[in-house]
């Protein structure tokens, strides 16, 4: 290795080594950059196979040269520590940089530069890029489904009212805080249901009756996940307590229930709610499809909720139970005042994950014929006037769902930090 002493970098020749190393890295990145953005190949004089790999090789030599431990330069040390620890790491670093540079121009030009958003028919889309006109024209359908256009204010008002009622807890005074749990578990769901029933469904107060078949789009996603979310939590709590009960019959019923729902896929549950469940009801008893779906998802997610809450109950030290019992508390008093408040705090992240899964599961109601956003996309995709824009539609829906779910998961981290108590 003595031959290559000039390649061996240390602090003595730092000036030359760093200068030449950075130059090589810059050349390699510049080559890829020019190649992908302007179709200029700096190294075209080399044979094609070598010129394909040449940026990698040049960049690698450059990274090798600047890999100096304790160089004394703060920025160089940070660089080396983070992306240039070994040769293998340097290769991966270069590959990632190159891939990003290579992928940028086509995706940029597809999504923004060559894309169209003007106009209101397919003819406006002439470029080779995405046709956002499609999203613009169908936007209301994706949001509200087949709900009549002039009635959309009803959905908006209902949502605003429900959210406003939900923020009630933030303004509660010390005196009212005692009743907050009662409010959120019993009063709030009923009020929300009444608001949604009277405002969105209509039929009263001079509002036009709109059947649930016409509901759809993202608003339906919200309605379904909201109700399932509200109802599955108490159900899960009861089941979790049942599974931890010392009474064998209660315990086995809970275990059977939880394991049954956790063992089947949601899609078969939805199939059951739409084809098998009506057989189990009296003949003249009609239940709306949407209600059936909400019940099905609630029963399904309740089992998952129960397992999460059970985890929290199990992680409480036994001393808490013993202490509560020794104070003379009965079963319910012990759980409501001592066990559950502590256990529920512990399971906040788990519960949030369950709710996240619930929101992500709602597009599945598409299989029983409810046109939620995935269903509306399928409808728009097959519209003869708007053929061939599947990509735009799915990207749009994915972005919306990603924002919702990402925000929820970040919020759950905040909640977790907020309720963290010293143990």
């Amino acid at each position, binding site marked *: 290795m003595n031959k290559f002493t000039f390649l061996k970098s240390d602090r003595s020749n730092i000036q030359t080594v760093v200068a030449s190393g950075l130059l090589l890295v810059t050349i390699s990145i510049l080559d890829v950059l020019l190649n992908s953005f302007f179709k200029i190949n700096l190294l075209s004089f080399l044979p094609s196979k070598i010129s394909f790999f040449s940026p990698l090789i040049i960049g690698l030599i450059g990274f090798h040269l600047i890999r100096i431990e304790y160089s004394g330069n703060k920025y160089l040390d940070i660089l080396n520590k983070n992306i240039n620890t070994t040769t293998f*790491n340097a290769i991966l670093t270069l590959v990632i940089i190159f891939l990003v540079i290579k992928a940028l121009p086509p995706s940029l030009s597809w999504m923004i530069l060559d894309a169209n958003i003007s106009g209101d028919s397919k003819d406006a889309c002439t470029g080779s890029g995405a046709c956002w006109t499609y999203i613009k024209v169908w936007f209301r359908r994706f949001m509200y489904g087949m709900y009549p256009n002039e009635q959309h204010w009803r959905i908006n008002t209902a949502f605003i009212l429900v959210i406003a009622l939900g923020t009630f807890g933030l303004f509660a005074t010390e005196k009212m805080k005692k009743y907050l749990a009662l409010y959120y578990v019993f009063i709030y769901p009923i009020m929300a249901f009444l608001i949604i029933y009277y405002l969105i469904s209509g039929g009263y107060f001079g509002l036009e009756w709109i059947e649930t078949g016409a509901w759809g789009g993202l608003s339906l996603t919200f309605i379904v996940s909201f109700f399932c979310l509200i109802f599955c939590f108490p159900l899960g709590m009861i089941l979790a307590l049942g599974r931890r009960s010392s009474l064998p019959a209660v315990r086995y019923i809970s275990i059977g229930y939880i394991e049954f729902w956790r063992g089947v896929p949601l899609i078969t549950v939805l*199939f059951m709610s739409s084809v098998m469940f009506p057989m189990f009801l009296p003949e003249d008893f009609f239940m709306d499809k949407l209600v059936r779906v909400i019940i099905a998802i609630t029963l399904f997610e309740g089992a998952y909720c129960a397992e999460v809450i059970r985890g929290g109950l199990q992680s409480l030290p036994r001393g808490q139970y013993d202490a509560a019992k020794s104070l003379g508390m009965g079963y319910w008093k012990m759980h409501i005042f001592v066990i559950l408040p502590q256990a529920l705090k512990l399971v906040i992240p788990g519960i949030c994950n369950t709710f996240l899964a619930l929101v992500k599961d709602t597009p599945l109601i598409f299989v029983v014929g409810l046109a939620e956003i995935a269903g509306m996309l399928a409808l728009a995709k097959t519209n003869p006037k708007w053929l061939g824009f599947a990509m735009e539609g799915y990207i749009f829906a994915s972005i919306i769902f*990603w924002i919702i779910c990402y925000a929820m998961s970040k919020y759950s981290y905040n909640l977790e930090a907020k309720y963290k108590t010293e143990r």
Partner: protein
Amino acid sequence: MKFRLLAYLFFFIGFADLFVKIFYGNIFSDLTEDYYEIANPILVFTPVIFFSIGGIFLKESKVSMSLENFGTTRIKYYSPQFICLSLVVLIFLFFTFNAQMNMENRGIDFGFSFLQQEASFDMQFSLMDYDGQDPYWWAYVVALLNTLLVAFLGIIFCTIIGVIVGIARLSPNFLIRNTAAWYVEFFRNIPLLLQIFFWYYAALRALPLPQDASPLFGVTYLTIKGYYMPAFLWNNLNVFVYSVIAAIISIILIRYYAVKLRDTEGKQLPVFYISLIILIVLPALTFLVGGVSLNFEIPVLKQLSATSYIYDGGIAVPPELIALTLALSLYTATFVAECVRAGIQGISKGQKEAAASLGLNTNQVLKLVIMPQALRIIIPPTTNQYLNLTKNSSLAAAIAYPDLVLVFAGTALMQTGRAIEIVSITMLTYLSISLAIAALMNWYNKSIEIKEK
């Protein structure tokens, strides 16, 4: 002891019941008319009920009256249980009664005899021979195999991607760490159904038509109509299979011997290389000695009509399967990656340092100290994810991949109109897969548990 005997008795009755129901139809249909009318729909579930009663007895035989209930009065102990049980029974009876009335009104009778009828629908893709003249039960088996195929492929790919991403998330390299983190955040926050739709309707539709496709790796073609691969034509396949089995058995023996050698004499055998050599050499020998030979059937472009082309010969992987496998593995890999990360992070630094101070090298530290402990944390949640993947594979119905849900709970249900029977069979199938894996997992967990005093 009494309880245990009762448990076995109930298991036996359950099995006998199931057996009779599958092969001879409903045994109870010969009973009196009145009984038949009330109880018929509930009879589907009798094997399940027998099994669960047996299970309860088995469990109770191990646990006697626990200390928890010491001092509780009898009334407090029995009345809630009685109320719960009667509630459940009432709900069941209500549903059964309604189902009975509804079926009577619609003139449907109940039973599984339809499974013997001719299915008379076609499946686009199947692993076994299937055509419309086969009975429904064969359609069920073929569809179940399709489901298991997609689950199997998904599990393999999601494990590969998940392990790589999970390790990458702990990389010292800033770029790799963040790329992996963004991959996880991106793919797990988009509903799986949308991802499947995206791959199937948007991404795979952008592939070339069969006549325009350029070969991938020389002999395979990725087209809008699917992925065409050469098929393997074996001579004396059985000899080859025996040689592979022999290789696997010898590897297991060598591993066992290596562990023994390590424990008794402290010597390390290069087990991995030895296994690799055996796995390559033994099957290769059969080509030279055993008369095994392998030919490839390469797909050839064939014209169907003026504009329609197709590849003939070889193996055709339908686009539905590709889209489903891609979406399932990319989605589940994010969760597997998190499990892997949590497992590796869960090992305290002291373990690594202690192992290094004993003089083990980096590979030995990883193999003998870190991995055995990390796997203990990684495997249970990962199995859970595999189970989720298997259940999620039922989304295949949305893009018309002929899996259990689409074929059986979809087409067969439409044709026969037997909602209760078919939905129950479908749910019980998934349930038994889940419970079987869960039972396996519990057993595994017990066996690797750290035994403390």
